[in-house]
C-alpha cells in the first residue's frame, strides 16, 4: 500500500514536470478561474451582508387608536415583545411620530405643512422588528386582534418584494458561481486529457502487463490534485497580497452597512483549496475513466 502511494505520487510528480508547459498552463487556467471565483465569493459575501441589513430593516408597523389608553398600549407592547418571532418592539407616540415626519420633510426639502395644523393628526404606532422577516403572519394576527390597534400597515407586499429581490440576487450569484465552476471543470478535464493522451502508449503497456486500474488511475488523479493545489496556493497568495487594498475599498464602499468580514478569509481559503483540488481530481478522474472503460 505504501509502495503504491509512493509510486503514484512519484509518477504524478514526474508526469507534472515532464509535461511542464502543459501542466503550468493548466495551473495558470486554474489560478485565473479561482481568482474569478474568489472575486465572486467576496462580492457575494458583501452583497449578502447588505441584503441581510436590508432585510433587518423590514418591520411591522401597527397604528394605535387615538382613544386607546396608555396602559393598554404599554401592555400590548410588552406582550408583543414576549412573542417568540419578535426581535424588538418600540412604541412611537404621536408626538414622536410628528417629529419624525417633520424631520423627513425637512430632509427632502419640502415645506412643513403640519405647522398650520392646530392638533397632531398622526397616530401613535407600535413598530416590531422580527427575528426572521419571512415569519410575520402570527405577529400581524396578534396585533390585529388587539382592540388598541386601529390597523396594521400592509407589510406583506413589502416583505415579499424585498425577499424576492434578495433571493433573486443570492440565487443569481450562486448560479454565476456554479457556471464558473463548470467552465473550470471542463478546462481541467481537457488539460488532463491531453496529458493522458500524451501517455496513452504508457497506459496501453500498463494494461497489457496487467496493471490494475488503480495503478493507472491514481498517478493521474494525484497529478490533477497537484495542479489544483498549486493553483489554489498561487490564488491564495494573490488574494493575500490584494487583501489589504481590497479590504479598504470594501469597507469604504459598504461603510453604511455593519459588515462582518471576520470569517471571510477562512471561508475563502477553504473554498479555493477545496475547489482547486476537487476540480483537479474530478477532471483527472473523468479523463482517465474513458481510457479504463475499454
Amino acid at each position, binding site marked *: 500500500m505504501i*509502495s503504491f502511494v509512493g509510486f503514484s505520487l512519484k509518477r504524478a510528480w514526474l508526469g507534472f514536470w515532464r509535461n511542464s508547459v502543459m501542466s503550468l498552463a493548466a495551473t495558470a487556467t486554474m489560478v485565473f478561474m479561482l481568482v474569478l471565483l474568489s472575486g465572486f465569493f467576496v462580492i457575494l459575501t458583501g452583497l449578502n451582508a447588505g441584503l441581510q441589513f436590508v432585510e433587518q430593516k423590514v418591520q411591522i408597523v401597527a397604528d394605535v387608536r387615538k382613544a386607546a389608553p396608555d396602559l393598554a398600549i404599554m401592555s400590548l407592547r410588552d406582550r408583543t415583545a414576549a412573542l417568540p418571532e419578535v426581535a424588538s418592539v418600540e412604541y412611537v407616540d404621536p408626538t414622536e411620530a410628528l417629529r419624525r415626519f417633520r424631520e423627513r420633510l425637512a430632509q427632502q426639502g419640502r415645506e412643513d405643512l403640519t405647522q398650520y395644523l392646530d392638533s397632531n393628526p398622526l397616530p401613535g404606532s407600535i413598530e416590531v422588528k422580527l427575528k426572521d422577516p419571512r415569519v410575520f403572519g402570527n405577529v400581524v394576527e396578534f396585533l390585529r386582534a388587539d382592540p388598541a390597534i386601529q390597523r396594521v400597515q400592509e407589510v406583506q407586499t413589502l416583505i415579499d418584494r424585498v425577499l424576492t429581490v434578495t433571493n433573486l440576487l443570492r440565487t443569481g450569484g450562486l448560479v454565476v458561481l456554479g457556471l464558473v465552476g463548470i467552465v473550470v471543470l471542463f478546462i481541467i478535464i481537457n488539460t488532463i486529457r491531453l496529458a493522458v493522451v500524451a501517455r496513452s502508449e504508457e497506459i496501453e503497456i500498463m494494461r497489457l502487463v496487467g*496493471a490494475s486500474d488503480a495503478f493507472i488511475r491514481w498517478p493521474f488523479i494525484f497529478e490533477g490534485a497537484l495542479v489544483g493545489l498549486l493553483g489554489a496556493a498561487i490564488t491564495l497568495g494573490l488574494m493575500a497580497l490584494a487583501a489589504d487594498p481590497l479590504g479598504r475599498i470594501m469597507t469604504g464602499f459598504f461603510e453604511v452597512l455593519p459588515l462582518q468580514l471576520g470569517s471571510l478569509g477562512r471561508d475563502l481559503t477553504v473554498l479555493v483549496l477545496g475547489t482547486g483540488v476537487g476540480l483537479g481530481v474530478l477532471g483527472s478522474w473523468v479523463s482517465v475513466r474513458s481510457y479504463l472503460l475499454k
Partner: protein
Amino acid sequence: MTQAPPRAAARSYRERPVGLTETETVGDGALLVLHSVTKTYPNGNTALRDVELVVPEGDFVFLVGPSGAGKSTLIRLLIRDEIATDGAVILDGQDVARLTRRQVPRIRRKIGIIFQDFKLLPTKTVWENVAFALEVTGTPRRRIAPAVDRVLSLVGLAAQAQQLPGQLSGGEQQRTAIARALVHDPRLVIADEPTGNLDPLISWEIIQLLLRINELGVTVLMATHNAEIVTALRKRVVALEDGRIIRDEVGAAYHRED
C-alpha cells in the same frame, strides 16, 4: 524461471471438446481452450467463426494466415481486450469473459505479450522498461531488481541494461520486449508478428530465444507470416482463414502439404 517442466501432451489436443458445458470439465493439461468462439464486431464484421482450439501447457503453436484472417482478434480475445460474441475462451481454467474488472489484470499477468513494434517506452532505459512491468503491478521494490537482472541475462541484454531503446538495434529492442513479457513469470507468451520488423538473421535469433523460453516450460503462441521459420521448425501450426481454423497440424509447414 520457476515453471514446472512442460507436461506431456497426454491428451490429443486436436480432439474437440464436444458437449462442453462447464469450464471445470476442461483444462486438464490444457492451458488455453477456445470453444466455438465467434467474434462479431459492432460494425457487423465477423472476425472469428466457431473457432475450436486447445493448447496444452508447454506447447509451441504457430498461428498463421493472411492478413485479416482473424489472428489479431484471436489474440485480443486471449488478453481480454475484446470479449467473444459467442462461445468460451478459457485460460488456465478461467472463463475470461466472466472475469470481473478486478480480475482482468490478474489474468493478464499470466500472459506475456510481444508485438511487432516492440512497444518500449523511449524515455526509459532497458532496465527501467522491464522493471516498469513489475512496478505497475505493485511488486515490492526488493523483488524487482533481482527479477529484472535475471530476465535480462536470460535474453542476453545484461550489458545493455542502462541503454535507451533508441540506442539499440531492432533485435535488441525486441529482446527487451521479450524480457518485459517474461518478468512476471507468465504461463503463456503471445508473440504477435515478433519478427515482422527484423531482418532474417535477427529473426532467427528471436525465434531461438522463444524456443528456449518454451523449453523452460512456458507455452508460446506466435502469430506470424514468416513461412521460412514456420516450415523449418516443424512445430504445431494453426491456420486461420476468413475467421475459421482451416488447419491444425503438429510438425507442419507454413503451407498445406498434401
